[in-house]
């Protein structure tokens, strides 16, 4: 197939709302959004707590978390694979090669981002708000809701960064999902497979959706920071 024809076929796939194509996009979004949601529920309070807590080894924890933001996705996938494989500690759950396993792997990728960025945001806010919050009797755990709320725009950006990382990665979901057609096949794993098989329109169509998604994320992040600027 020649170059232009590939693009034409790819656009036809995107615009034509082919059910198989939509199923792949849908699974990708379901896995990544669920992973980001879980990471937010766990990571926002944990990051805030880390910002306020003082304990021995705190600096080491922060350095490790920052380092984990750069954890290679294939390594995260490998770790989850080892946990979930038949001989692994969680092997009896039978979760390997399921969307649940893919969500677990992506949570591992997103969680450090959410915790580390939340820690930074909340720590900065706390140093600014400390006197007032303590004055009105909000200390420790009781200060966390206020700090998370007032950091909402920066934290939204942190969650979008997490979403961006998870939706773009291929290594982790490929290892623990197995790229099973109609079941664990995401946009990124399909692109990998179809490119090597030669079904370039499908790969390119998914690539277009991924790029559109990235654009959308950045537009939303930009909007959030603009709205945030209104509260300075």
């Amino acid at each position: 197939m020649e170059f232009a024809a590939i693009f034409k076929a790819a656009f036809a796939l995107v615009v034509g709302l082919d059910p198989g194509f939509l199923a792949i996009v849908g699974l990708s979004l379901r896995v990544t959004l669920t992973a980001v949601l879980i990471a937010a529920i766990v990571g926002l309070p944990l990051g805030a707590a880390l910002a306020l807590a003082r304990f021995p080894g705190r600096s080491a924890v922060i350095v490790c978390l920052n380092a984990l933001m750069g954890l290679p996705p294939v390594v995260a996938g490998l770790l989850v694979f080892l946990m979930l494989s038949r001989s692994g500690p969680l092997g009896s759950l039978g979760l390997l090669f399921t969307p649940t396993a893919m969500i677990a792997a992506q949570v591992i990728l997103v969680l450090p981002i959410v915790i580390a960025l939340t820690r930074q945001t909340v720590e900065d806010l706390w140093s600014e708000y400390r006197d007032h919050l303590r004055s009105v009797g909000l200390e420790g755990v009781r200060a966390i809701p206020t700090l998370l709320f007032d950091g909402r725009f920066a934290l939204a950006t942190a969650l979008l960064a997490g979403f961006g990382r998870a939706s773009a990665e291929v290594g982790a979901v490929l290892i623990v999902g197995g790229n099973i057609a109609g079941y664990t096949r995401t946009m990124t794993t399909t692109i990998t497979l179809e490119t090597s098989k030669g079904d370039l329109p499908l790969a390119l169509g998914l690539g277009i959706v991924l790029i559109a998604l990235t654009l959308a994320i950045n537009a939303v992040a930009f909007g959030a920071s603009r709205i945030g600027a209104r509260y300075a």
Partner: protein
Amino acid sequence: MRDVASILPLAVDAVSFLGDGRRLIDGLSFDMPAGGLAVLLGPNGAGKSLTLRLCHGLLTPSQGRIRWAAGAEGRSRRHAMVFQKPIMLRRSVEANIAHALAAAGISGSERRDRARDALARFGLSERATQAARLLSGGEQQRLAIARAWALRPELLFLDEPTSQLDPAATRQIEELLSGLVAEGITVLMSTHDLGQARRLASRVLFLHRGRLIEDASAQSFFAQPASPEARAFLAGELIW
């Protein structure tokens, strides 16, 4: 108006505070009975802010005690504090007040009523929905005072509330403070502005190097300062 026993007088009893191995507050003792506006006066580094923070409970004395009447220590916080640089939450003007009320355990409709009252009392009603951090410096400090006022404190601490404001905004805050005192709120504020102390104070606590050098009515302090440090300070000389 007060339906519970007063937290005043406040008794500061031989309080010292150590920081970095230095004695920053040294054997401070004074009482704050109800009524009036007392000014903590002194050069930079005299310990004015520290004294306010110790009284308000933001710092714990290294030695000595801060005692409230009726054993109302710590918990029933009917004292509030306004800081040198207004700390504005990233929310609307009204939400800033509502947040402080919520923190004090005041719920629902009463919270809204009291926030609206405070906005009206301090001329901020038209700003209610604006972002607090985009107000001018003078308006921010006014909001900080309104927010503290909404908590219905018996005693209000202010740490150099006008040091970052222009003369017009300073004048406005001073008028507000006189109004609060007339309302029956007891005020303890720090300043290094002698003019402001003369205009507002009914009592002067003169601090120098963490020690209380003089505690006198404003009239007698400005007419006849008893200590050489206070005389030098009033004469505008640098004292160490």
